[in-house]
């Protein structure tokens, strides 16, 4: 009996040791955290008919990623998207730039980073929303969103996103109106880096204001003079003028209004278009391919001009077939960012691939044909004149 009891104690000790070991292992085991999509939209008070900006970022959690296919669903009963753009996105190649549907309540994009990236804050895209009805609005990530690692085989990695919730307040609760004669529309980008802010103060009200590129920075508790505010020589970026107010006396400050200013004075990055031909596309005819980034406001659109005498034409494509007939020896591509800054790159058609004599010397052929026609026309005139004694 004593022996059995001893065995029982020993076995129990062994069992406890095993259980403790397993627990310790589980506690000490480190698991890779899922890659996270997050937004810089926290702590915004939103009001009906007052637009607000949301920027999205990726934290790759020490992993190298290169491809993102993202779909967001938003409450389209009280929220609509005004604009969704790459902005200063770190994704430099797009299968599908950010597009939205207010009918479906979706924002979608497919883009990638050549060579991959590992960072805690990779800008993905921006969207400007307009609340259209009071209540709670949500933005959630669709389960079809996909993130692939930069590992040479496109391994899929889990992507997480904490849904965004906004409480939309009635329009009549909207704060004091702030205007800027230099930057009147908060949703637009301007090349002007001197900002003038104006607001109409209410009687018996004190104000404190601040101006920062950080949405999380709030004005201090020191009263500021009620006057037009000027900020000069501002670097490119997005700024928030925040106005706090309180009635005279020992009462706390409250947020009165926020006004967004967007400045971009820098052209898009220089780029080199490619002129190529491949038998598998465009029936082997030459095509041009171009792509670049803008570090601040983002690429708004491209324009293409075929030939020195051609017209600039806007295009949504970054791959275009070269027309068979061009007057002139160049193809020019202009990239325009959201602020209107431009960058132009030109291809010389002397390097046109798959060229035939006709394509390269089209201008000379036209001139020669014109001369031949002129000669024959003259001869015909002489013949007719003689024949009919005109």
């Amino acid at each position, binding site marked *: 009996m004593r022996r059995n009891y001893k065995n029982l104690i020993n076995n129990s000790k062994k069992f406890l040791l095993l259980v403790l070991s397993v627990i310790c292992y589980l506690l000490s085991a480190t698991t890779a955290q899922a890659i996270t999509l997050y937004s810089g939209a926290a702590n915004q008070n939103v009001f009906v008919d007052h637009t607000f900006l949301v920027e999205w970022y990726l934290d790759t959690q020490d992993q190298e990623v290169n491809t993102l296919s993202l779909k967001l669903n938003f409450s389209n009963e009280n929220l609509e998207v005004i604009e969704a753009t790459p902005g200063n996105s770190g994704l430099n190649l797009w299968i599908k730039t950010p597009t939205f549907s207010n009918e479906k309540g979706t924002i979608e994009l497919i883009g*990638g980073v050549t*060579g991959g*990236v590992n960072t805690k804050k990779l800008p993905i895209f921006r969207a400007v929303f307009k609340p259209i009805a009071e209540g709670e609005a949500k933005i959630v990530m669709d389960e079809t969103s996909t993130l692939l690692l930069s590992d*040479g085989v*496109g391994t899929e990695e889990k992507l997480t996103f904490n849904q965004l919730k906004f409480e939309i307040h009635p329009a009549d609760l909207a704060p004091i109106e702030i205007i800027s004669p230099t930057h009147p529309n908060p949703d637009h980008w301007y090349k002007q880096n001197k900002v003038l802010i104006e607001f109409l103060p209410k009687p018996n009200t004190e104000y404190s204001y601040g101006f920062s590129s950080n949405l999380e920075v709030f004005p201090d508790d020191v009263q500021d003079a009620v006057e037009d505010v000027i900020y000069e020589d501002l670097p490119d970026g997005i700024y928030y003028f925040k106005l706090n107010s309180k009635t005279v006396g020992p009462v706390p400050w409250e947020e009165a209004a926020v006004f967004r200013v967007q400045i971009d004075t*820098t*052209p898009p990055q220089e780029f080199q278009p490619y002129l190529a031909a491949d038998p598998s*596309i465009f029936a082997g005819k030459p095509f041009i391919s171009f792509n670049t980034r803008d570090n*601040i406001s983002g690429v708004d659109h491209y324009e293409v001009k075929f030939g020195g005498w051609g017209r600039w034409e806007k295009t949504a494509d970054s791959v275009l077939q070269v027309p068979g007939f061009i007057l002139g020896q160049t193809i020019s591509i202009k990239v325009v960012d959201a602020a209107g800054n431009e960058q132009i790159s030109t291809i010389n058609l002397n390097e046109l691939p798959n060229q035939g004599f006709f394509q390269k010397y089209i201008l000379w052929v036209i001139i020669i044909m014109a*001369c031949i026609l002129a000669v024959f026309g003259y001869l015909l005139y002489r013949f007719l004149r003689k024949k009919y004694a005109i």
Partner: protein
Amino acid sequence: MLKKETKKAIALLMVAMALLASQSVFATDYSSTNFTVKDPVIDEGTSSTSSANFGLGQSIGQLGIGKSTSTNFQLWSGFQYFFKVNANVLTATPGAGQASLSWTAPTTFLGITVGSYEVGTGTISGSYVFENVGSVTTFIKSGLTAGTTYYFIIKALSPGGNFLVFSNEATAVPTAAGGGGGGGGGYGNQLTFNGIAYPNSLVTLVQDGTIAATTTAATSGYFSMGLNGLSNGTYNFSLYAADSTGNLSPNLNTSRTISSGVAVVVNDLIIAPTIHLSYSTIKQGESLTISGYTAPSVPVTINISGQANVNVTSDANGYYSYLLDTTALIKAVYQVFSHALVGSINSPNSFTLSFEVGDTSVPTPSPECKRSDLNCDGWVNLIDFSILLYFWDDTNPFNPRADIDKSGKVGLRDFSIMLYDWTG
């Protein structure tokens, strides 16, 4: 018989055509996108030889063992048998009234270490005034005259202050103060990349998917590349090297944020080795050669799935190889990759290759085109992306190369693989 006016008209036309034809110079157009002819490097040979256990320093000739010095050089005569130091490489980037100097730490052997550096500055090649800068590997020499050519050299010293080795001489012509930059955009910023690739290899810097700069690494494998005139913002960069057989390394990726007036220097970039297998399928019992290129004279670890790691050393040309006896390997598919230890820094891994141990031997075929190079021009760039975009979402595309992962459909995974293989 033609009338006089007709003759005149035809003569005029012929003159016009002759004039036009004389302008039609049929220049011979030719281009090459698949190879690069580099100037042959006349290598007088390294100044030292080494094995695992000793290094032989250069012997100039001696009356006896000892040391001679002058202002500009030191002579170690005799057989220097107890340590060796490889020359480091210096780059000089001009600035407003100054020059930014950056150099690698010399590779040392058999116990000697670098204690400090002296920067030599002069306006005549080979003649310098030295100043000790401590153990840093970057230095800004200010107070220089704009427009004047300055010559720089780095002297490495042991902890005891003894001379170890000189770097190469670098030159810079400082600019006038106040130049460059401007506006809220912050143009004029500088970014420099310094690192180690393979001896005399072509190193390519890709900025946001486009080739921004190329350079040829030194015989030590050291390279330095700079970009000027960048506007403020965040950029993604990739670096890769091509070895002498044309194999490319995996991309080495980094992101940098540029802000006004800041010169950013990125040091210690180590390019991953290349790797090649002599056979894709090897008959059990025969030998398979695993080889590639990396920095010169460094330890290389070869990792074979399910097997113990193999350690080899690259030669002075950066070439490493290992003959794998497959007698003890079971018939299966194995994965292989390598990495090198450069100084105290482990390189990233090479590409991972596969081989199968079976009943026959099949040499590794030379690929017609590399994966993701959809138009087979030797590059994975915007043209290939354009082709991929053209066939996006296609099942069994007309150009089967667009289906990079051979899944039967052109989609996200193909896009990801192309981004990984991107060369710009």
